[in-house]
């Protein structure tokens, strides 16, 4: 991620929290947590210690005060993010171009949480204000990583 992308991304996260420190804490934890899941799900094998560390992260994320306050709103979204990421991985290896394109979009499923928090903290208008720039930043970052790996 370039400095500029990182700045846009961080600013979007700050804006989504809308001054609520609990929301900011949750977003930070969630993004780290989802990165961990992304890594685990793409590994061929995993040492138990590494896996169990992510289970501990699971405990901490879902015990954040912000999650507790908003669990009823966020539970379904969490399942959808995991599901989208699962589709992404399944389709990345698929033969059809459209599946690969959709997979690239779904790759950023975890970042949807930033938008969910934005809705809770500032309503639809805040989400709309953040969404396009956030997607641009994460998409560009992903393209950069993919290019560096190919």
């Amino acid at each position, binding site marked *: 991620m370039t400095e500029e992308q990182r700045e846009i991304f961080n600013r979007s996260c700050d804006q989504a929290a809308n001054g609520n420190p609990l929301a900011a804490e949750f977003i930070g934890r969630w993004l780290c947590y989802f990165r961990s899941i992304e890594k685990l799900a793409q*590994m061929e094998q995993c040492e138990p*210690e590494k896996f*169990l560390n992510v289970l501990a992260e699971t405990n*901490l994320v879902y*015990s954040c005060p912000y999650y507790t306050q908003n669990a009823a709103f966020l539970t379904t979204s969490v*399942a959808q993010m995991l599901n989208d990421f699962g589709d992404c*991985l399944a389709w990345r290896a698929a033969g059809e171009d459209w599946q690969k394109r959709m997979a690239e979009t779904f790759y950023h499923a975890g970042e949807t949480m930033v938008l969910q928090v934005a809705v809770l903290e500032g309503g639809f208008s805040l989400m709309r204000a953040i969404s396009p720039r956030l997607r641009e930043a994460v998409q560009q970052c992903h393209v950069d990583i993919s290019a560096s790996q190919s």
Partner: protein
Amino acid sequence: MTDDFINLICAGNRRAQEFIGLWGQYLRAVDNLIDGDAPWTAENVLNCFACGAAMYSHPFYQSNKASLQMVILVTTNTYADSVKWEKSPELWKRQWADVLRHADGNVMSAVTLICSGWPTLRSISAPFMAAAYIGHKDRHGVPE
């Protein structure tokens, strides 16, 4: 675990019963991946974390988070020690691992305390641990 047993420790609390069901699903998903009974695939890994999300998002967990969070975290740590030691060259570590693997019983104990109190916990704790240990021993033997 029988329905009667779950009913006893939950004192008929439906939310607690649901939570125990979700805890069981989560445990199985974790165990299967650690033991290699389920292959390490993206589907299985994501399914495991979806089970975790469902369990932690359940109203029983969220409303008893103050009691349950540390218990689950410490249980995870104990289980991690068990996994680390189960193949140790030192016999005592393998023997400890064989006991520590049943750390998940602590979560059952916590639910029992929350729903039914200390006397019920004292009445079920030792038989529960014995059943867990013997069940595992019968299937897998003991470290030698």
